[in-house]
């Protein structure tokens, strides 16, 4: 597609439930990133995929968070046993080598 697509745009879930967030990057972009943003503040790095290399998971806050990227394209971020502190906007971005990021509009996750 023309841009990075994220779904759902909004998700309200009960504490303890699992959620899946989806990101469809720009075709041809080899790198895909997940960031988390709380209350309109700066972005917190979560995970990074580059081609067929092992993902950089250094930003995942706990083992309840995981992500995969299938076929070098679509990525899913999974949060298990959600907690209230997981509430945030989850942003996905993609890029080609050496270029800036193109972000999706994000998924606003609210854990109640």
């Amino acid at each position: 597609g023309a841009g990075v697509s994220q779904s759902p745009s909004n998700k309200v879930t009960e504490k303890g439930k699992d959620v899946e967030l989806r990101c469809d990057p720009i075709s041809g972009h080899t790198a895909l990133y997940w960031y988390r943003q709380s209350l309109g503040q700066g972005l917190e790095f979560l995970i990074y995929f580059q081609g067929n290399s092992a993902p950089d998971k250094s930003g995942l806050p706990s083992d309840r968070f995981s992500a995969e990227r299938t076929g070098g394209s679509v990525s899913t971020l999974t949060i298990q046993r959600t907690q209230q502190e997981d509430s945030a906007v989850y942003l996905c971005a993609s890029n080609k080598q050496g270029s800036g990021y193109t972000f999706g509009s994000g998924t606003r996750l609210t854990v109640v």
Partner: protein
Amino acid sequence: TQLLEQSPQFLSIQEGENLTVYCNSSSVFSSLQWYRQEPGEGPVLLVTVVTGGEVKKLKRLTFQFGDARKDSSLHITAAQPGDTGLYLCAGALRGGYQKVTFGTGTKLQVIP
């Protein structure tokens, strides 16, 4: 530990005024990007600077990369209400791959 500190955190000015936003770090970056984010959207790339001392202009916006590649500034001349948003700097560490670290953000409001 926040690698990139932005100042000020908040800025509210009248239309037509000039302003400068600063992005500072103790780390050396191979490149630095500036993004603007509007409510409900992902950040949008404004510019990438890669050479120490580099100055780039984008209409009324002037971006500068410090000589030592540790800091950057964004200057807006004659601010317009359309400039309102969250401004984020993001740096790629020297020797690292594409993953960038985002700054703490500057929220700008331009009052008509």
